[in-house]
């Protein structure tokens, strides 16, 4: 705690998270090694396509890239992508609206934490996909079950990160604020909120990642629209190249969402990144 105001450890942690993506992000240390790793992946892929010699099982990378180029201009695919993104954003917002206040409550009050913690830990043990059948019973087919799954899988990450953020605030900050004349409400808005922004954004990144990861799977089963649905259709029509193109698209969207949140972290918690 000797360097509590530096939050040095937290800053290092942020940097490390960042380092995973810095290669494409154009940070200070721009590196081109990622090109090599992509080249290796494509080489193996090309070799596998050559050995299988079957467009159905393993289309060559160039075919998949051509399919990707078609897919990103196909209005129907884009429309379904839009449907999925909308579901993710709604589910994610619900996760934040429930998770952040609950995280504050549990981080701040030992008693609330003692009451809610066992409940959360029990629910968390149920694999998220095991909720799909019940959520269809509750919400029918379509938006309902997918949004439920996204909100549900995300809310735990948000709660846990928020709790960690609140609990890592040094007691000296509270005392300092009080001795400078801050009341309860001002301690919340002037100390707790700004101090927890980076942890909440970490939680948001995890929630969005988990939401994006499970929504497509939920859409295989529970809907007749959305990106997952388009993928199942490509599969049944034996368009393996398109299927792979869609997988690449999903990766690109997930990556873009994550970059967006890192940017948001930089602008909301710019004090951490000032050089």
């Amino acid at each position, binding site marked *: 705690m000797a*360097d509590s105001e*530096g939050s040095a450890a937290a800053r290092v942690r942020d940097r490390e998270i960042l380092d995973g993506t810095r290669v494409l992000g154009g940070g200070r240390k721009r590196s081109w090694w990622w090109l090599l790793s992509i080249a290796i992946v494509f080489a193996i892929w090309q070799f596998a396509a050559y050995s299988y010699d079957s467009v159905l099982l393993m289309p060559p990378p160039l075919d998949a890239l051509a399919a990707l180029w078609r897919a990103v201009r196909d209005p129907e695919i884009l429309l379904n992508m839009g449907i999925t993104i909308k579901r993710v954003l709604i589910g994610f917002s619900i996760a934040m609206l429930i998770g952040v206040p609950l995280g504050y409550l549990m981080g701040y009050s030992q008693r609330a934490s003692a009451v809610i913690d066992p409940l959360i830990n029990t629910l968390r043990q149920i694999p998220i996909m095991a909720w799909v059948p019940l959520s269809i019973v509750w919400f029918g087919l379509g938006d309902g079950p997918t949004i439920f799954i996204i909100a549900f899988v995300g809310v735990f990450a948000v709660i846990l990160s928020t709790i960690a953020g609140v609990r890592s605030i040094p007691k000296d*900050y509270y005392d*300092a604020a009080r001795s400078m004349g801050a009341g309860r409400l001002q301690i919340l808005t002037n100390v707790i909120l700004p101090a927890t922004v980076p942890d909440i954004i970490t939680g948001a990144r995890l929630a969005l990642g988990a939401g994006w990861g499970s929504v497509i799977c939920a859409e295989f089963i529970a809907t007749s629209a959305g990106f997952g649905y388009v993928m199942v259709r490509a599969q049944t029509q034996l368009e393996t190249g398109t299927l792979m193109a869609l997988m690449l698209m999903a990766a690109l969207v997930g990556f873009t969402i994550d970059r967006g949140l890192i940017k948001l972290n930089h602008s909301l918690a710019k004090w951490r990144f000032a050089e």
Partner: protein
Amino acid sequence: MKLEVRGIHKQYANAGAPHTVLSDVSLTVGEGQYVTLLGPSGCGKTTLLNIVAGFIAADRGTIRVAEREVSKPGPDRGFIFQSYALFPWMSLADNVRYPMKRQGVPKDEREKRLDDLLSMARLDGKGHLYPHQLSGGMKQRTAVVRALAGRPQVLLMDEPFGAVDFQMRLMMQEEMERLWLKNRTTVLMVTHDVQEAIYMSDRVIVMSGHGGRIMADLPIDLPRPRERRGEIYHQYEDQLIDLLQQAFVDGERP
């Protein structure tokens, strides 16, 4: 303003075996005096200072600032933490503005005071920096002027020079003396360093190692700004080292 501590008792209920940290501690810091609390580790200095600040409650006793009884933390008592506790999400200038904002100091007045304080602490032009961009000495000076910005009647400090190396420590003490000579705020500071106590204080209050009592109250009669040499300085040093040894032995006896 005058700070009066009267009959403070504090006990911790350490797992069935109650531990008396402070028993009937009384002391007065006169207006504009610089007083240090000296004592062996664990004797209750931080506990006493936190009670004066209102961060923890005493079992018995009263604290008066300028004849007014206080029990909660408030801007009448500025506090300088050993960790400095600067808010890392605020720039240096915003940290110093914070107590003034909380007290509703009008904007013009606030900015004027900020400029005065920053130049007093030789921090002009550094206001835009965040705490993690400051050196240890700059952080310490920021913590001092932040505490002064709210115009407290009493300044409380818990080992504000504790976390740095020897050279830095001497520099910070000199800096603190210089700042204090310009303000002459009433100060109660905790330390366990004899030289620091002599260099900084008008009076040194020595606490016993056990039972939380005051053992001695020694006025330091040296001209300011001070020097760390001379016959009288060394006499004080010998005297306080003896007292501390006694305080320590006192702590050995249950």
